[in-house]
């Protein structure tokens, strides 16, 4: 019912806007970088004259469409880090204008205007809870081992908490690590970490745009509760061949790109590999040089523009980690994604994108000991079809589409050989089908009042074949049904309303509010703090209900000093249902009845996020502060009372500063402070079975010591020649050498077993790094 009334409302609004449109014409086209031909996502376009003005921003493919009453206008196109383009246009017929922006040095553009561009987009737009990462500033930030990393940088934003020291896992607004939808060119990346989380799967060289939605999710996204991290790969330079790369302490990387047909098509190929194990191989110690420890990944993309109306993109990612100890065990894991997209411009107002997506995550663990040999493999695979349409009318941008995803999970296969202690085992595959349709409308009601509203109708079906158990509250099998191939075992349907609005108090200040509902049908079972290579994936089922979250948020946004200072404050409250935890002694791996090990409950999270950013001048950077609370309430845990979620931290502060001393030297520093994780400390002790055992009262009621860390970095650009540029990056991680807590263990003193002690483990002290980057 709800979705039906939404649809008719939107249809009605469309018709209205059509009916009153008279003598209006549309200007449309694509905005690109003049040097590389890369489309500029989110570039703003405005047409204005003495009496009226109209504005919009480019979509994910650089396409824009803007309608205005017939007449003469000044057209202004702007994008951060680029020179602003202006042109006089006469809008007396539909206009097609493809525009290229120079990145500051070129003189391709007529006039440079800085004061009249469509600024304050962050203030005007109804979208809230959105953070965009500037890929250029990423180069200058200090990071562990000198490896720039998208996932570590977003942890410096308000509302985003680090999964752990040096870890790419993250928590958004009280959500768990598996409640983030991580997309690479629309394909789901299930495990976004390399090397147990010290690196992410995203190679900064290959990435063009990163957007993180913490709330107010637009209706085209769905499937996870707490956030969407939308990462887009570069298209590749369609003007000329270029190569760049970097040599670091732990990994090296290279990227090549160039035109296939100049101005029509291009390719991009980027690869990265670690060489820790090459160092090990060089070791004379035979027990070290037989070990394996590496990862590599490859990003590739091709695009070709057939004509102004049709463009095809093909992109893919392949990454693999290998860890092994000679004669003992081997572990490998990795993601594969492939995306084919067709852009079609039906007319100057209707833009379509069709995507075919494949993605897979797999792991294998092999025990090599002859007596106990086993190979355990597991994988999750999706086929995903999406059709997304954007319709640009006078004061509306209407977006609608459909999506279908077919999931297959192969939970665990165990194979053995010879006289192993272990038995072969194949846990039944599980199949699922997610279908969704959505419609949303971004509507400029007045100059001051903008709304973005819509609904996503999502369904999930668990499909046969297989034997499906139903478990009672004690985790015992109460019934079993056998279903055939393609049978619908269980279906859930949820409407997910999405609404956000902004009201501009002045040109530079606004207030915003949003509400959104999200559902989630793919769940990770893990005992680790954040991602681990052997995480188990399960779907919603007859036992596991879809996770559900409702979030309301309000915010105040203010820009000042010609956009160079940006401030925002947001508050949010989130209710979560059907959250998952485990019974005592749960066995999550290679367990055909793993659903019997689960417990269910609710969660709530609320907080305040403050963000102040300086975007211009010699000194740039930001301060972000989060005050928050995250709790869970699960039947069978903590006597059914609310308790602090593991990721609950009261205060999180990040201060980031980048100082451009001169064209050659850039210095940067960041400092983070966060309250210690919520942990359970013993309230007493006793002895059973001859072992000191601890008595616990309330779950996660204690705190680890706080985490504080200062990182420094300096980048020196070598003298540029026409064809070759290079730079050195020097970094110091944890410059104050503070011992931040990783875990705390309670144990008997080794030299005095009548006493116990608390022992804190810290991972990284002060770590210097150096990286050489080049480009030609």
């Amino acid at each position, binding site marked *: 019912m709800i979705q039906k009334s939404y649809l008719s409302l939107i249809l009605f609004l469309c018709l209205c806007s059509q009916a009153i449109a008279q003598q209006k014409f549309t200007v449309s086209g694509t905005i690109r970088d003049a040097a590389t031909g890369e489309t500029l996502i989110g570039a703003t376009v405005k047409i204005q004259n003495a009496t009226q003005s109209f504005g919009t921003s480019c979509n994910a493919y650089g396409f824009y469409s803007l309608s205005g009453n017939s007449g003469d206008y000044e057209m202004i196109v702007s994008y951060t880090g680029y020179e602003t383009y202006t042109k006089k246009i006469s809008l007396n017929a539909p206009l097609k204008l493809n525009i290229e922006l120079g990145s500051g040095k070129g003189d391709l553009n007529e006039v440079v205007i800085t004061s009249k561009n469509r600024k304050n987009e962050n203030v005007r737009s109804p979208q809230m809870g959105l953070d965009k990462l500037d890929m250029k500033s990423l180069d200058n930030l200090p990071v562990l081992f000198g490896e720039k990393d998208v996932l570590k940088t977003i942890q410096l934003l308000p509302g985003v908490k680090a999964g752990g020291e040096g870890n790419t896992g993250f928590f958004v607004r009280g959500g768990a690590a598996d409640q983030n939808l991580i997309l690479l060119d629309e394909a789901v990346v299930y495990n976004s970490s390399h090397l*147990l989380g010290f690196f992410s799967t995203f190679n900064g060289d290959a990435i063009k745009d990163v957007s993180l939605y913490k709330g107010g999710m637009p209706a085209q996204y769905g499937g996870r509760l707490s956030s969407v991290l939308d990462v887009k790969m570069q298209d590749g330079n369609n003007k000329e061949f270029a190569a760049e790369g970097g040599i670091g302490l732990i990994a090296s990387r290279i990227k090549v790109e160039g035109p296939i047909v100049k101005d029509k098509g291009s390719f991009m190929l980027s690869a990265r590999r670690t060489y820790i194990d090459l160092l090990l191989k060089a070791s004379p110690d035979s027990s*070290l040089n037989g070990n394996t420890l590496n990862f590599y990944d490859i990003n590739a993309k091709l695009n070709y523009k057939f004509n102004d109306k049709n463009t095809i993109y093909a992109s893919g990612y392949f990454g693999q980690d290998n860890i092994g100890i000679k*004669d003992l065990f081997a572990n490998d894991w990795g993601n594969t994604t492939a995306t084919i997209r067709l852009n079609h411009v039906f007319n100057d107002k209707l833009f379509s994108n069709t995507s075919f997506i494949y993605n897979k995550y797999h792991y294998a663990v092999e025990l090599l000991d002859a007596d*106990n040999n086993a190979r355990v493999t597991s994988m999750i695979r999706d086929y995903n079809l999406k059709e997304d349409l954007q319709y640009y009318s006078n004061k509306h941008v209407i977006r609608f589409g459909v999506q279908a995803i077919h999931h297959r999970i192969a939970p665990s296969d165990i194979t053995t050989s010879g006289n192993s202690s272990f038995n072969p085992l194949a846990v039944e595959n599980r199949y699922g089908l997610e279908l969704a349709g959505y419609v949303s409308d971004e509507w400029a009601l007045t100059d001051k009042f903008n709304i973005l509203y819509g609904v996503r109708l999502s369904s999930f079906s668990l499909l046969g074949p297989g034997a499906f158990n139903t478990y009672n509250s004690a985790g015992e099998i109460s019934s079993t049904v056998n279903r055939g191939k393609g049978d619908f075992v269980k279906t859930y349907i949820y409407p997910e309303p999405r609404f956000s609005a902004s009201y501009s108090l002045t040109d530079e200040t606004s207030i915003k509010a949003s509400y959104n509902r999200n559902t989630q049908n793919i769940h990770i079972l893990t005992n*680790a703090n954040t991602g681990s290579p052997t995480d188990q994936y399960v779907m919603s089922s007859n036992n596991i209900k879809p996770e559900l979250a409702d979030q309301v948020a309000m915010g105040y946004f203010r820009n000042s000093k010609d956009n160079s200072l940006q401030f925002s404050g947001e508050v949010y409250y989130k209710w979560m249902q059907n959250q998952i935890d485990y019974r005592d002694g749960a066995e999550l791996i290679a367990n055909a009845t793993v659903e019997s090990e689960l417990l269910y409950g609710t969660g709530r999270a609320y907080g305040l996020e403050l963000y102040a950013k300086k975007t211009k001048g010699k000194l740039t950077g930001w301060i972000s502060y989060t005050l928050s609370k995250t709790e869970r309430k699960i039947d069978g845990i903590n006597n059914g009372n609310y308790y602090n979620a593991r990721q609950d931290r009261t205060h999180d502060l990040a201060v980031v500063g980048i100082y451009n001393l001169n064209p050659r030297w850039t210095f940067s520093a960041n400092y983070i402070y966060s309250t210690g994780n919520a942990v359970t400390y013993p309230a007493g002790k006793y002895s*059973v*079975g001859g*072992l000191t055992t601890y008595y616990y009262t309330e779950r996660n009621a204690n705190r680890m010591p706080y985490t504080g860390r200062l990182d420094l970095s300096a980048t020196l650009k070598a003298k540029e020649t026409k064809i070759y540029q290079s730079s050195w990056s020097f970094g110091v991680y944890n410059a104050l050498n503070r011992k931040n807590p990783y875990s705390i263990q309670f144990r008997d003193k080794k030299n005095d077993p009548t*006493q116990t002690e608390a*022992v804190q483990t810290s991972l990284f002290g002060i770590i210097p790094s150096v990286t050489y980057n080049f480009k030609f």
Partner: protein
Amino acid sequence: MLTYKFLSKYISYTVLSLLILITFASCEKVIDVKLDTSANQIVIEGNITDRLGVQTVTINESVPYTNSNTYPAITGAQVTVTDDNNRSWTFTETKPGTYTVNSMRAETGRTYTLRVVSKNVTYTAKSTLQRLVRLNSLSTKIISFGGDDLKIVEVHFKDPADQVNQYRWIMKVNGVQIKAVFADNDRLTNGNDVNNPLFFDDDTNEELKTGDAVEVEMQCIDKDVFTYWYTLSQQTQNGPGGGVTPGNPPSNIDNNALGYFSVHTTQRRTLKVQ
């Protein structure tokens, strides 16, 4: 599963230790923590074996974390055990907090009920004696790990295919009990000749050396007792922040008593470490 747990732990250790080679990082230090202190809790440990002899139930109290590891006995409790054949044994307090009965043995398949009355509160628990699975032998295994040769004791037994089995092992080296919980079931090894390595960490234990005298006791335990020990074993390998959130393991004794009541088989074997 022990093997698997060992691996998942050591995968992360490997990566860390290899990174440490490069980064001279990671360290441990003893810290002061502020802890809440709760009232002392009753702790009941009841063990009844299939060997005819003295059977023991100990009852004492938990203490605050900062105390030394000595636990006050609870005296004057009434302790009885009955089986499902209406036989009954009354335990007598032979030492403060230690309640025993002479010449009793448990019989395979029978369920025993422990009943403790202390300070006007009654605690009861049930446990069933499982079929004996023979502990065939022990052996020394040497694995090479990160430049060190690590010596490990393996237990060898034939798991019966026609039933679900749970095991617990207690290991002593030169007469000193290893501080680790060893518990496993036959979920992945049903019906096989099983070689189960008994891994333990060297944070609180001495590494095995050639010539050490090792004694291993193997118990066949019931499902509830297994869940108790297995939960404990998952927690002891990681402290807070490092893995499974710790909690009190699910006891088969009611009324919030800590501890367990285990009716099990018992066998011992010894080995000189090679």
